């Protein structure tokens, strides 16, 4: 079942066009990986999906991105509601400089999801459990989140993202700042999370894309060159450029 479908999406930074006519459908409850060399526009595309590009003054987005039969680029779309439904995890772990508990409870608080302290405690606990962090931090929920290790911080950010029960989670190279052990933990987590969430992950590592994703899209110079099931892209790509990139001839 298709969760997100983008139609003819163009993105401009000032006069420079960064994305050209992107048409991509994203399957529900699966992991979709976006791969491609640096500067190919995969992160830009990811940021279109929760309208984080709004923050950049000179950035303009054209085309339609349909989520739940609704065009998020339409004027009537409220970005606060949109981002409640579509969470995001960034390249560098960016916990708030507050306690672990406050990091998780922030989203549910501003969206009014908990009526009582007990309910909030429950949300914090389940979010941390889902992010496989509960065991490690349950005794120090009220210590600063910035005191955790890099991998723990990133899982804290994932816990924060899932605290508001988003339908979609966007991940922008979530493991690029982490060591191999932390990366393995996050990848395991992603596999677990796809039961409840649709996940789109931007990654530099083709091995990671092959490991975690069911679908892959290959971007090059602002164009979506090829997309399809991960198996097919990696074993039997249609396009010459895809094949060259997969086999490491450029990138």
């Amino acid at each position, binding site marked *: 079942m298709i969760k997100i479908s983008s139609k003819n999406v163009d993105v401009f930074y000032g006069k420079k066009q960064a994305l050209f006519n992107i048409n991509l459908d994203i399957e529900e409850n699966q992991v979709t990986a976006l791969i491609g060399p640096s500067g190919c526009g995969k992160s830009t595309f990811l940021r279109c999906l*929760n309208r*984080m590009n709004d*923050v950049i*003054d000179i950035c303009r987005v054209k085309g339609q991105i349909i989520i739940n039969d609704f065009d998020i680029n339409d004027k009537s779309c409220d970005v*606060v*509601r*949109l*981002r*409640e439904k579509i*969470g*995001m995890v*960034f390249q*560098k772990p*960016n*916990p*708030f*400089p507050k306690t672990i508990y406050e990091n998780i409870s*922030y*989203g549910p608080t*501003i*969206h009014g999801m908990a009526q009582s302290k007990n309910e909030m405690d429950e949300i914090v606990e389940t979010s941390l459990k889902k992010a496989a962090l509960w065991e490690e931090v349950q005794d120090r929920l009220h210590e600063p989140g*910035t005191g955790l290790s890099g991998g723990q*911080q990133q899982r804290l*950010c994932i816990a*924060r*993202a899932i605290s*508001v029960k988003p339908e979609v989670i966007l991940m922008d190279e979530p493991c690029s700042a982490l060591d191999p052990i932390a990366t393995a933990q996050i990848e395991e987590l992603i596999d677990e999370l796809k039961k409840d969430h649709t996940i789109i992950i931007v990654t530099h590592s083709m091995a990671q894309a092959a490991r975690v994703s069911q679908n892959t899209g290959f971007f090059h110079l602002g164009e979506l060159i090829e997309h399809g099931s991960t198996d097919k892209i990696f074993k039997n790509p249609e396009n010459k450029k895809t094949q060259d990139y997969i086999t490491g001839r450029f990138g």
Partner: protein
Amino acid sequence: MNKNKEQLLNKRYKAEKRFRLYGQSAIFMALLFLIIFIFKIFSTGYSAFQKTWLIVPVTFDAELMMLEQNPSKEDLKDADYYDIALKSMADLDPNANENQENELKRMVSYFFEREIKRELLNDPSLIGKTKDVYLTASDDLDQVFKGNYPRDLPEDQRRVTDYQLKIFDQLVELGKVESKFNLSFFTYPDSREAELAGIASSFMGSIFSILVCLMIAFPVAVLAAIYLEEFAPKNRFTDFIEVNINNLAAVPSIVFGLLGLGILLAVFQLPRSTPLVGGITLSLMTLPTIIIACRASLKAVPPSIREAALAMGASKMQTTMHHTVPLSMPGTLSGTIIGLAQALGETAPLILIGMVAFVNTIPGSPLDPAASLPVQIYIWAESAERGFVEKVSACIMVLLGFLIIMNLFAQIIRHKFEKKWS
């Protein structure tokens, strides 16, 4: 070739050594000036914290005070103390003629009557008895006792007469002259008489001015900075505003004084010489300092924090108020304190709005006339009496102490509360 290289190496070492020497001598010079300056102020000013008292026997003669039998508290307050005060001074030398009696009276401050009255009000049973009372010595004798007075000048070039000196020396010999901590320097308002002059009115004036300044400048500056940094579009117009805020910070303070004079006093008819007007004028000066500090600390909040909050579905306003502004507060607050410290030391604008007037009452609100500490320094430095020389230095010491405490506070806030980014 090899020799050439060695020469180059030697040259480099020498240049490095020379450069270190230049730097060290620059720091040495700066420290030297600072030490000379502080030493000078302390050595001139420390004696102002001591005050000389004459211990004079006073007879509380009911008849001279025009008191009835069994006087009430009210009667004591209304009684006439001038005659017994005069008499007790005249009694210091039983053989004194009328002129000399006058000179004797001038050996103490004109507060002597009040000091005697206070003594009786504290203990009404003294009526009809004689008691030693502490009377404030005149500023010249105070200086004589502290050894700051040129006694060897010919008599017609001194304000203290030979006769006064003779009596004073007798009193010193009898142990009737005492030096005590000068509490009145902190509790009395300004006075034309150096021995009675204190910093209470200018100190309170400074406090009220700074409070008014803080209450106006802080909210306005923080709101302006948040709007400019977080919400305003980046275009020509906002660039123009930014340049002008920086210009505002460079405007000489006297210009703000003229503004206060021309607008606050002339147009809005606010009360002259008051900390209210002073504070508003100072707030104009402090505004750009706080705006610049606040914007700098907002800029220092990493964009990743804003993105994290936005991606959680926080609105722009929530992101700013929940995350960016709290994180920028340590920098903003220490900038504010530094701005206030600047305002505290400001003299010129306050002189223009009339806070230089002679104020011998302690202000109870920002609407009462007052001076301020730096203006007090200016007023006393202009006064001719020898007694004011040490007061100027003492007032400088108080002002510097205040500034050091404020700057220390700013440092502590910055170091203690600033979040470290991982």
